[in-house]
């Protein structure tokens, strides 16, 4: 009996010793754990995912097209009649479908322009900060010059010269929204550059481009993720502004900005045309901000 017990203990000990490489808790796993503890951020993430899913798949399950007129229902308030849950506009187009389709455009522009501007901003800022000296001065003066350019003027010029193309919207927004990221990343790179692990990499003989990509960029990710979530709302708003001014997507295609623009014109008679796209946009922006907040806390290494 006693011997059996000893045997069992011995076996357990042996197993514990022989346990293979313990799966490690990476800094990312730590961050995920902390993020999941932040309720506002998690709720926002779920909500934003739902909005995105609804925009992508919703129109497939609804009985209406975004560009067809329901002759029985023109300028109708939200109703169960013909399933016009968000009502219709004055041309009898279903507002729910139009909001979701518009959301596709807004979210897509938001995602693409953010991705492009973040990538450009990281590479620009990290290169300037890491190389330093004259290269840094020249690169950052270019950033300053970009700030001074009035983007609406350029946007109007580009649209006038090249026509109303969807990619132009993304391009315009990208060209005028990467500078903040470049500045933030440059500052962070300057402080990272003097860390001993960069010196160690130089000492080993790691080439400069690999030092930037392997050591600087991964260590910037914390601040980049946070800044990205701040950029997304900005970009969506810029798209709305461009569409609002008539420089964005063309009828009958729509976006949240266009819908809000149209809705604002008729808000005394048909307020739902402003209300629903407006609520969707606000919700998205709130969610992005809360997620950004949660990520900032989660990725702060001091908060262990």
């Amino acid at each position: 009996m006693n011997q059996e017990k000893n045997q069992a203990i011995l076996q357990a000990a042996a197993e514990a010793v022989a346990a293979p490489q313990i799966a490690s808790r990476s800094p990312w796993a730590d961050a995920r754990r902390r993020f999941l503890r932040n309720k506002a951020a998690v709720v926002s993430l779920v909500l934003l995912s739902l909005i995105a899913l609804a925009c992508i798949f919703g129109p497939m399950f609804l009985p209406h097209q975004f560009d067809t007129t329901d002759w029985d229902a023109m300028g109708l308030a939200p109703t169960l009649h013909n399933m016009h849950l968000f009502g219709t506009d004055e041309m009898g187009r279903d507002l729910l479908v139009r909001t979701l389709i518009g959301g596709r455009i807004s979210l897509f522009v938001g995602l693409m322009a953010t991705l492009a501007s973040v990538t450009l901003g990281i590479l620009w800022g990290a290169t300037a900060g890491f190389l330093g000296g004259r290269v840094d001065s020249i690169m950052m003066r270019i950033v300053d010059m970009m700030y001074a350019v009035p983007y609406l003027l350029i946007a109007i010029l580009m649209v006038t010269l090249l026509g109303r193309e969807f990619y132009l919207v993304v391009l315009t927004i990208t060209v005028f929204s990467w500078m903040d990221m470049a500045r933030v990343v440059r500052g962070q790179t300057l402080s990272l550059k003097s860390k001993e692990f960069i010196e160690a990499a130089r000492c080993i003989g790691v080439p400069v481009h690999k030092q930037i990509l392997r050591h600087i960029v991964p260590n910037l990710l914390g601040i980049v993720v946070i800044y990205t979530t701040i950029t997304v709302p900005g970009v969506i708003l810029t798209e709305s502004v461009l569409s609002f001014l008539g420089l964005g997507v063309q009828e009958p295609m729509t976006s949240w900005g266009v819908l809000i623009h149209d809705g604002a014109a008729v808000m005394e008679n048909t307020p739902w045309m402003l209300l629903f796209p407006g609520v969707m946009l606000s919700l998205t922006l709130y969610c992005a901000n809360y997620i950004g907040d949660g990520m900032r806390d989660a990725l702060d290494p001091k908060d262990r």
Partner: protein
Amino acid sequence: MSVETATVAERQPILSVRDLKVHFKVKHDKGWLPSTRTLKAVDGISFDLYAGETLGIVGESGCGKSTLSRGILNLIPATGGEIVWLGRELHKAGAKEWQAVRREVQMIFQDPLASLDPRMTVAQIIAEPLHTHYPELGKDEVMRRVRVMMQRVGLTEQQINRYPHEFSGGQCQRIGIARALILQPKLIICDEPVSALDVSIQAQIINLLKELQQEMGLALIFIAHDLAVVKHISDRILVMYLGREMELAEKHALYDQPKHPYTKALLSAIPIPDPELERKKTIQILQGDLPSPIDPPSGCVFRTRCPQAQPLCAEQQPQLRVVNARTQVSCLLATSEQVA
């Protein structure tokens, strides 16, 4: 390990540093026009290093110890002087030649945690030199070498996928040592490798370095401000003050018969682990502060704080000269001893 005097003269040095200077331009905003002034962090250091030997470098904070080590490794560009490594003139070397030298000369850093990339695992950190210099090695071979090296420095295999923040300071320094050793270098420059560690861990790391040195025939340049640590590990010791060398001597010669007044003052500050003796001994406290390396004193840089300073010291700059077979000193007042 200790090097016989006679053989030192006969052997070829693996590293020769001659009159190495590292100066920085400092912006000076006072006055009407912005001007730049020169900060002489390292100003004319010369020494030889022989295979398998340990050279200790001591001096107070800000005397240029770390800058010297970075100047040798070209992490900070040297302003002047010559560095010869195994017959190659590094001060003239291009990027390609340096890349070859980096296989042979490695460095260990002061802050063990800060010298490891926080987003990389231990395996990635230790393998990085291999990936950089031997990209043709297969994944399995790299991992095999990493495991062997981890075991050698006293880390267990289970820790291979962990991140630096999960380790203690001593373990982090072991990772740093493993990274430095994996290319099997001939020289490791240790920049205060133990000053951030607890005393008990210091001993472990120092003894590990000594063992590895014997095993692999490494030469070490060991920078520290702790004289007891330096005494334990070094064969010869270089004493620096304000970017210049004061005394270069064999360990026992330096500790038993210091020639330079600065060395004497430093040694008198070492606590003796016997309260009786400790109370009786006279600590020679240096007056004043370290002068600014932007505007160093004329002549001998130490004269402003030297208890034996003479008018002559302000006029002439002393050079390192041989006073006996085991000691070189740069002091105008030091008398040469007859070498039989």
